C-alpha cells in the first residue's frame, strides 16, 4: 500500500502555451424570462492561472459557471476551451475535454468508500465516458485504484480511505471532491464557492490544498464571496454585476476600482 506515486498531471496539451487563454468566452448572453442573467460577457482565462469571479449576489456568477459546463445553455455567445467550442455539448463530454466542477455543496458518492469515490473519476479518465468492462475485477492491482490511493494520500485523506464518504466533515468532503477532480486530470477546474459554510480552519486548509493543486499546472476559475480566499489565491479577478463585467484585472487593480466599490455598496448615492 505504501507505494505512493504523485499524480502526474498531463503536460503539454493541445498546443496551448502557458499564459495563453485556455478558456475563451465571447459575447455570452443568457436570459431567464425577463431577467438578463448574463449580459454580453467576454472573458479569457490564462492557462495555469487562478482566476476569481466575484460580484454581489445575483450578479450571474453561478449562471456563468453553469453555462461553461452545459448545465445551462447560453442564448448566444461562444465558449472555447483549448481553442475548440464546447457550446451545446452534454456535460459529460465537456468534462471529458478536461474541465471539472466543484459544487457549492460538495458532491460526492456518500455511501461508498473514499477509494471508490476517487477510483470512479480515475476510471472516467482512463476509460472515457462509457466502457463495458464487466469481467476484470477492480482490485488493488488495478491502475485506477492505485492512482486513487495515491491521490487520497496527496490530499491528506489516506487514513480514512476505506470509510464511507458520508461520514466526512464538510471540509474533508470538499477535499474528497477535489481529489475526484484531480483524478479526472482536469485541466480547468471550476469552483463555486469552495469554502462556503466552512470554518476558518477548514477554509485555510482548502486554500492550501488549492495552492498545492495549482503547482501541478491546473487552471482554476473560482467564484467566491470570501475576499480572504480571493486575495490569497487569485492572480486575476473579474467582477460581475447584474450580468455584466464591470472590472477585470489583478486583485490590486480591482480593489481600487471605483466601479467595484459602487457595485458592492450598491446605490449608496
Amino acid at each position: 500500500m505504501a507505494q505512493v506515486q504523485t499524480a502526474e498531471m498531463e503536460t503539454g496539451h493541445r498546443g496551448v502555451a502557458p499564459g495563453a487563454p485556455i478558456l475563451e468566452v465571447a459575447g455570452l448572453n443568457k436570459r431567464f424570462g425577463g431577467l438578463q442573467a448574463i449580459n454580453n460577457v467576454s472573458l479569457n482565462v490564462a492557462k495555469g492561472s487562478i482566476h476569481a469571479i466575484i460580484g454581489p449576489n445575483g450578479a450571474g456568477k453561478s449562471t456563468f459557471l453553469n453555462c461553461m459546463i452545459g448545465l445551462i445553455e447560453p442564448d448566444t455567445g461562444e465558449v472555447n476551451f483549448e481553442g475548440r467550442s464546447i457550446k451545446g455539448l452534454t456535460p459529460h463530454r465537456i468534462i471529458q475535454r478536461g474541465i471539472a466542477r466543484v459544487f457549492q455543496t460538495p458532491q460526492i458518492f456518500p455511501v461508498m468508500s473514499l477509494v471508490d469515490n476517487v477510483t470512479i473519476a480515475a476510471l472516467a479518465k482512463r476509460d472515457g465516458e462509457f466502457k463495458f468492462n464487466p469481467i476484470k475485477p477492480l482490485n488493488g492491482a488495478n491502475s485506477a485504484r492505485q492512482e486513487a490511493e495515491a491521490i487520497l494520500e496527496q490530499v491528506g485523506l489516506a487514513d480514512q480511505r476505506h470509510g464511507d464518504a458520508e461520514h466526512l466533515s464538510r471540509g474533508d468532503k470538499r477535499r474528497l471532491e477535489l481529489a475526484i477532480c484531480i483524478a479526472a486530470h482536469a485541466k480547468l477546474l471550476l469552483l463555486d464557492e469552495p469554502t462556503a459554510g466552512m470554518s476558518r480552519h477548514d477554509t485555510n486548509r482548502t486554500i492550501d490544498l488549492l495552492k498545492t493543486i495549482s503547482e501541478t499546472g491546473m487552471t482554476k476559475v473560482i467564484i467566491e464571496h470570501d475576499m480572504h480566499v480571493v486575495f490569497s489565491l487569485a492572480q486575476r479577478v473579474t467582477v460581475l454585476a447584474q450580468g455584466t463585467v464591470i472590472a477585470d484585472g489583478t486583485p490590486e487593480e480591482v480593489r481600487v476600482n471605483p466601479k467595484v466599490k459602487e457595485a458592492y455598496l450598491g446605490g449608496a448615492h
Partner: protein
Amino acid sequence: MSTETASAPVRAAGNAGVKTFGREITFMMIFSAIVLTMPFWITLIGGYQGLATKIMVWAIFAVGFDILLGFTGLLSFGHAAFFGGAAYITGVVFRDYTSEIIVAFLASQVGVMILAVIIGFLSIRRTGIYFSILTLAFASMLFAAALAIFAPFTGGYDGLTMRTTPSLFGMPMQGLSVFYMGAFMLIFGFAVARTLKNSAFGLMLRSIKENPMRLEYTGVNVWAYKMAAFIISAHFAAVAGFLMVVYEPYVATKFLHWSTSGEVVIMSVIGGVGTLLGPIIGAAFLMYFENVVQSFIGEQWKLVLGLIFVLVVIFLPGGFMQLGSMIWKATGQKAFGGAPPPEGPRKHDSERE
C-alpha cells in the same frame, strides 16, 4: 498502515489477491451445492420437484433485476414485458416452428434485446419516478397489444398453448432435466452478476445509485450505463421467461401483466436489494409461500405477503439479508465460507444511524 487495511471491512471491490479468489470459489461451490440438490431437499419441507424449477426461473429473473434495482437504483415496473415477451416468443417458436430449445432461446434473446432497447430508450430519459411510471406504462401497452392486436399470434385471453415437448438436440426436456438446465443457468447468471458487481462497470452502476449528477460531472455518460444495466437485466428476465415455457409449455397472459413485474419487485425487496443473494432467497421464499404456505393459510396468503412486504420496506430496508447480518452480528459469528458480509442497501436507515 497495512494492518489498518487488513482490519478494514472487506468491500465488494476490495482487496486484491488469491485469497479473495479462493473465497469466491468456495462461496460459489456452496451456493451450487445448495441449488443443485434443491429437488431433493425441497420435498422434505413440503415442496415438490416442479417447485424447484419454478424457483430457478424466478431466481434468474430476480438476479437480473437486482443489477438494475440493487446496483443502479432504477425501479422498473415493466420487466414483465421482457419475461412475458420472451415467454411468448419461445411459445410461438415451439408452436409454429420447432421444439428445439436452442432456437427458442436465441429467438427470445434477440427479441427481448430489441424490446429492451426501445423501452429503455423511451424510459431512461428521466430519473426515478418517471422511470418507474414509464416502464409500467410500456409494459402495460405490450400486455394490451398482446391481447388485442397480436391476438392471432398470442392466443389472446386464452394464452398460448402448444402440444410440443421441448427438446435439446432431439432429447426431450422434461422434469429434472429442465430443472438442471435452470440450475446451471442460475449458477452461471449468479456468477456473472457477482463478477460484474466487482468490476469497473459494476462500480459505475453503483455510483449511479449514489449520485448520478456527480457521475455525469465526472465525465461519465450516465445514460449509457443506465441503458446497459437495463438491457442486461432484460436479458436475465428473458432467460427466465424462456425457461418458464420450457418447464411448462403454456404461456399465460399473466406473464406480461404488470403483476409479474410487481412479483419480482416484491421478491427483490423482501430478500434484500443490491445483494444478489437476497433476491434469490426472496424468489425462493415467494415461490414457497405461494405454493406451500398457501395451503395452510388459504386465500389470504397474498394479504399476508403484502403485509410482510410492507413491514420489510418500513423496518428492514435491507430485507432478509439485513436480518441475517443483524443476527450474525448479534451472535458474534463470522460470515460462513468467507463470503463477504451481506451488504444491505445501506441507505439512511436506522441500522446505520
